């Protein structure tokens, strides 16, 4: 099972009680859905914070970046880049920039 590097936004790190980058073992094939499943299993307080509980879809103000590309609108079942799947590059979970 590959170990990915996940970067979470400030508030989700606090909620999960982690600091810095999160190492995360993810089932293959390595997809955004598999990453979310693994995150929610390892850190139950994150349940529902990245994906809508009722639909399983990405929350509107969450973005996913991988290898300098925006994966926010990719299918959750699409395989992530090899560099992310092997841990060479991190997967960034971003809270959309919005004020308040």
């Amino acid at each position, binding site marked *: 099972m590959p170990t990915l590097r996940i970067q979470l936004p*400030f*508030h989700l790190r606090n909620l999960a009680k982690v600091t810095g980058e999160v190492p995360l073992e993810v089932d293959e094939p390595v997809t955004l859905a598999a990453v979310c499943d693994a995150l929610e299993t390892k850190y139950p307080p994150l*349940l529902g*914070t990245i994906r809508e*509980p009722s639909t399983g879809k990405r929350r509107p103000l*969450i973005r996913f970046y991988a290898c300098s590309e925006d994966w926010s609108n990719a299918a959750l079942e699409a395989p992530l880049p090899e560099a992310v799947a092997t841990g060479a590059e991190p997967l960034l979970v971003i809270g959309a920039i919005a004020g308040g």
Partner: protein
Amino acid sequence: MSRVRLLVGTRKGAFIITSDGKRQKWKIEGPHFGGWELYHLKGSPVDPDRIYASQCSNWFGQIVQRSSDGGQTWETVGNQFNYEGAVGEHLWYDGTPHAWEFKRVWHFEPSLDDPDTVYAGIEDAALLRSTDGGMTWTEFPALRAAQGEKWAPGAGGMGLHTIVLDPTNKNRIFVAISAGGAFRTEDGGASWKPINRGLKSNYMPDPTAEVGYCVHRIAQHPARPETLFMQLHWDVMRTDDGGENWREISGDLPTDFGFPVEINPHEPNTVYVVPITSDSLHYPPDGKLRVYRSKIGGEEWEPLTKGLPQENCYVNVLRDSMCTDQLDPGGIYFGTTGGQVYGSADGGDSWNAIARDLPAVLSVEAQTLP
């Protein structure tokens, strides 16, 4: 000596404010969950150290926090709020049908006799209950069957914000919804009845319809469960028959628009409201922050101003932001959208600023501790 603990929810976190029974010196702790909106926090009447908190964010959704040590430490519990059966539709702002959709928890009401049982009022409006300390939640779907298809959101959303558990009858619960109205169950939630006779709202096509009212708050004194006081969108109302009939008691208030309504803990006929200029101007009339008190259950009101700003004050006081303690004389508290928390240890005769510079206050609950 007894103590008081205030649970303050704000736009940017929760604060826990404590004092001894004199209520003169206060200690502020927080923010807890900094950066998150804390819509409401409330403690169990039978175990005050058991506290439930609604933590939410436009980015990350709904979190429910539970404390078992008076707010020193917290753990996340269940945040799955699902509607039972067919979700159905209510009215949208423009009068078109709109599917029910969970957005946030507006209010927690812990059971009067079990710290693991707690009710949640949510947006879009529904009532749910947990009997396992907040881990899982189950809806009372019969409430939405009470003409839910005719309910519509108020400006702040379609929230169920008031839950009154009758202390004399476990099977009787009152709830209020913006903008659905007031409802009552006599059978523990199996069926619900609209209780809005006597209300009148000109913003509805039928101003005296059975449902659709933007009720802002309901208060009940435990010693007199048939009497309820209501701050309607406009109008302060009263019922003496458990909601079967309401009558207006706005009397000589400078304006009868407002959000909270509270009752003195030791005087069931002493009622407090905070008049706000209008539904278009959400700040006090004339820049003067005044609580109004009636000692005869309405109609005749006196302004309470000592210690409150009487010029250039343009804050609002939201519906869950006023509360009382159980000490004698009774303490009364309220928070403002300007981040102030005011308290009175003499039933409202005089006020002190307990906190001046918090984020906008969404809710204040008082706990009286041994």
